[in-house]
């Protein structure tokens, strides 16, 4: 068993037009910048993969990461909780022009829907959004005297995530708050593609400390010294 891909391009093989792509990261922490930018390059060169549905907490910031995907024109729809970030121009312009779709999902519901997708739970009830416009059209039920909204699982064809350590069996650790949605997305995608800052031998990470067991991971590519989205933005990259 060897899940290590020799290159980023190999790791990204098979991502097709119209797919749903979960992308790890919250704000600038945890975004798999190198995977994303390689995918953007691929789209610019070949016109594919386009018409993607992208699932992330935000909708891109500045001109890097998901914003670069939006500027390239490869994103048909965002599923996110907070498309207003400090510099959301990429998304905002397209959204107001009607050129990109948006499914707005409360952040905790987004996390729980992704976990449900990974855990084989097709639907669950949450108090979040009850009585609000966001719950419109969703079934509502009362349990123990309180009202809840039914939410469905969320799955994807592909997850692109960033890890700190990985081994050939796909076991992962993360770095600080860069963990965020990534362990959930790894569970919920058919193909989970990981850029890891360092590849180690199986057994080097204590079994107690592995955050994502390899069963949830399909491909790993080493990206030493990865770019950090927030740092890029602060440097004014575009």
């Amino acid at each position, binding site marked *: 068993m060897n899940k290590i891909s020799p290159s980023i391009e190999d790791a990204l093989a098979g991502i097709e037009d119209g797919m749903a792509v979960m992308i790890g990261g919250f704000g600038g922490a945890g975004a798999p910048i190198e995977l994303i930018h390689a995918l953007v390059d691929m789209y610019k060169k070949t016109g594919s993969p386009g018409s993607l549905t992208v699932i992330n907490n935000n909708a891109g910031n500045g001109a890097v990461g998901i914003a670069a995907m939006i500027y390239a024109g490869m994103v048909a729809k965002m599923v996110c909780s907070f*498309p207003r970030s400090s510099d959301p121009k990429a998304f*905002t312009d397209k959204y107001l022009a009607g050129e990109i779709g948006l499914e707005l999902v*409360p*952040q905790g519901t987004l996390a729980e829907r992704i*976990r449900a997708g990974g855990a084989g739970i097709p639907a669950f009830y949450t108090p979040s959004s009850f009585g609000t416009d966001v719950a419109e059209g969703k079934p509502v039920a009362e349990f123990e005297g309180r009202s809840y909204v039914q939410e469905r699982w969320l799955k994807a064809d592909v997850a692109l995530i960033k890890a700190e350590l990985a081994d050939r069996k796909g076991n992962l650790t993360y770095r600080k708050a860069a*963990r965020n*949605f990534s362990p959930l997305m790894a569970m919920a995608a058919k193909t989970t593609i990981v850029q890891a800052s360092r590849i180690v031998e199986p057994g080097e990470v204590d079994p107690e400390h592995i955050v994502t067991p390899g069963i949830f991971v399909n491909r790993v590519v080493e990206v030493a010294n990865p770019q950090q989205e927030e740092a890029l933005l*602060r440097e004014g990259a575009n």
Partner: protein
Amino acid sequence: MTTKLSNAQIAWRAAQDLPDGAYVNLGIGFPEMIAKFKPKGREVIYHTENGVLDFGEAPPAGQEDWDLINAGKKAITLNDGASFFHHADSFAMVRGGHLDVAVLGAYEISENGDLANWSTGPGSVPAVGGAMDLVHGAKQVWVVTDHVTKKGAPKLLKQCRLPLTGVACVTTVYTSLAVVDIRNGRFVLREKLPGMSLDELQALTEAELSVEGTVKDLVVPEV
């Protein structure tokens, strides 16, 4: 005589009510300011929905680690005893009733505790973040806000007009003029600025301000 509290003063006042040993989530922006005014000697453990418990102050400029941020995307530091976890576990803490206090900003609050703080209506890009989760689950949901809008219209209403964030969820409102608890579908006035009569305050409040017992003076230092 103070005519109204500054945001910092509202944050100071809210901070005085932080219970010792509480687990607290401070919403991004204005509510984050509360941490600065935590009374000495009280231990408060801060939760941020992007997966960190027990974080500390901002690091000095230039020493930020951008993998270590809060929900407002600001760099933070860790206290001894901090922990990291993924987003589903983080919102289990929120939704599962494990937080003692969540503090948010508001456009409007209704007397039954409805909160509107995420959308000013059509025409803009909607963004909700974690607010719809944070208003549920925490044992107390506080709002910090100016008492009236920039145009002088009341924000404490009989019913919210803007899209709701949550229904019957707010427990206390700390405003620029008063501290108002929400009990049994009514605004109950706990404190008001000493220079202001109840009638004057009521004139700036759409829904009725109930009084149960003594209304204390809202006294806040310069901060």
